[in-house]
């Protein structure tokens, strides 16, 4: 609106009428078009650089690069399997913990919070997203990990030791607190703000007539959420979850701090492991030759996995509103 007032006050200034230059118009239009095209070029460039950079490793090991569990820098043998499993399992643990929390927060913000309390709570949740990933790593490593080892991991290991299945999945050989599960917990808190704030916006967009009519026939708040709101926002909530998954898959610093960076694959989710991103962050600066190609090839796998996840997420979310 400021523009309007400024334009009406123009005549009082000395009339210096500029004839608009046609060249500026063309230049501006083309410059902005090129800038927009650059977005496409960037994505294509990232994809190409990953494929080309990782090509020597793919050529050397073929499909074995994905399925092999060996990561031997001495003999130049590289396999991505432990890192792939680590990436997927940390991300899934993050979803299992983070999704219920996020949905609970979204429901609280839209249905339960007193009006004056909504804004500070929303801001606090969104600030969780602003905290740099490395700070989550510090918090995880120096505050959360010791507590987790002492109060969860060691007691749990004592209880499940020797039990079938549970004794393998939940038993930790070195109860240091570091591991796949710890990384999943930290990741859960990192993806909460994204899932929660999108879900909140989705729930807010649902016409209140729907809610009111459900209340009108005697539904409780829980029933309104379960039978009216969730089905209405269902697809976009799944989109929001996929968006969180995309974040969790590629998160680097926080995971590198707490995942334990073990190269072997363990049957227990409480044991140290590594993810694609953590391995790249750990080894990249010392890597040479084929190891460097293998790390970029890992990045290539990460790129295609997150790309597919994000495409699905965007398609689902965009049905309602752009995010």
């Amino acid at each position, binding site marked *: 609106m*400021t523009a309007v007032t400024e334009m009406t006050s123009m005549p009082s200034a000395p009339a210096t009428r500029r004839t608009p230059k046609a060249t500026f118009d063309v230049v501006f239009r083309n410059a902005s078009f090129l800038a927009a095209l650059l977005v496409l070029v960037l994505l294509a460039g990232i994809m190409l650089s990953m494929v080309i950079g990782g090509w020597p490793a793919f050529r050397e090991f073929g499909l074995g690069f994905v399925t092999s569990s060996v990561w031997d820098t001495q003999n130049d043998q590289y396999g991505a399997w432990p890192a792939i499993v680590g990436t997927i399992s940390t991300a899934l643990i993050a979803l299992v913990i983070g999704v219920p929390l996020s949905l609970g*927060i979204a429901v609280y913000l839209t249905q*339960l919070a007193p009006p004056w309390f909504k804004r500070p709570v929303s801001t606090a949740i969104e600030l969780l997203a602003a905290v740099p990933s490395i700070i989550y790593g*510090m*918090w995880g490593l120096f505050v959360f990990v010791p507590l987790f080892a002492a109060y969860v991991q060691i007691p749990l290991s004592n209880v499940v030791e020797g039990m079938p299945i549970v004794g393998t999945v939940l038993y930790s050989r070195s109860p240091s607190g570091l591991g796949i599960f710890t990384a999943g917990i930290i990741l859960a808190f990192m993806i909460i703000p994204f899932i929660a704030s999108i879900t909140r916006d989705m729930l807010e967009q649902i016409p209140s007539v729907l809610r009111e009519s459900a209340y009108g026939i005697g539904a409780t708040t829980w029933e309104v959420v379960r039978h009216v709101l969730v089905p209405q926002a269902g697809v976009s909530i799944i989109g929001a979850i996929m968006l969180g998954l995309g974040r969790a898959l590629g998160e680097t610093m926080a995971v590198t701090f707490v995942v334990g960076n073990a190269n072997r694959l363990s049957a227990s989710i409480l044991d140290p492991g590594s993810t694609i991103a953590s391995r790249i962050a750990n080894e990249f600066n010392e890597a040479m030759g084929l190891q460097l190609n293998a790390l970029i090839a890992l990045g290539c796998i990460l790129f295609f996995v997150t*790309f597919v996840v994000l495409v699905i997420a965007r398609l689902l979310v965009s049905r309602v509103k752009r995010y």
Partner: protein
Amino acid sequence: MTMTSATPGSSMPKSLPHAEWGRVRSGRRTADRAMKVIATGFTFLAIFVLFWILGMLIVKGLGGLSLATFTQVTPGPGTEGGGLANAIVGSIVLTFLGILIATPIGVLAGTWLAEYGRKSPLANLIRFINDILLSAPSILIGLFVYVILVEPFRGYSGWAGGVALGIIAIPVIVRTTEDMLNLVPGPLREAGAALGAPPSVVITSVTWRAAKAGMVTGILLALARIAGETAPLIFTALNNNFWFSPTLVGGVSNLPVTIYQFASAPYENWQQLAWAGSLVITMSILLLSIIARRIVRGSK
């Protein structure tokens, strides 16, 4: 009119404690209560974690913070004392380099989407790809810049770091610019065009002006986003313990990578500095985000 003037709550008898429930089955009542308690509990858990992290930073970081933190350079292995001056300045340089690269590109691209491309298939594609870049893992952007700028020039540089941060910032700026331009009412553009102004003049002196606050917010948000990025800098600007060269060639010290390297180092002064650095960086970023939020609220 007289019937609607009564508020719904006032018709309920206040004396009965469970009047609102009527004859609701106890199972439904319990489910409802449980959901309310769980949702509230989850929300407070998330807020608790935020304050736990902030509390940790203040407790551990404030002790390491002194004047020397801002005046001395990062210490080498086994050296006493030291500060973070070079890392802080390096971070500021890299972040602003990133914003300097990203702002013109992001603003122009967002402008094209909102003003020229609009609903065309190409614009929709660019919008979609931009949204994907927005949440692409930053480590991949670091690798990309490594491949195109570090490997060919045989060395880490601040320029590569700035470009990496810029690439992370571009989608944020594109997105907010387009959103903000879309909020500008069409008649404003038509009024400009009616005065005989070509599209470029209408955009630069009418639309941009009307959307200025929102666009600045987008740039601030991008600034907050890239200021704490660590992963892409490991492969591009790296780090060092000295004042970096003004040409930005070679490793440029920066706060996030310094924190990463110092946090789990065996030297006590390094750990102290890592905590002090964490406090500085987090508080700056949270402050930036809050300021950006204020501007958005003010412009509405």
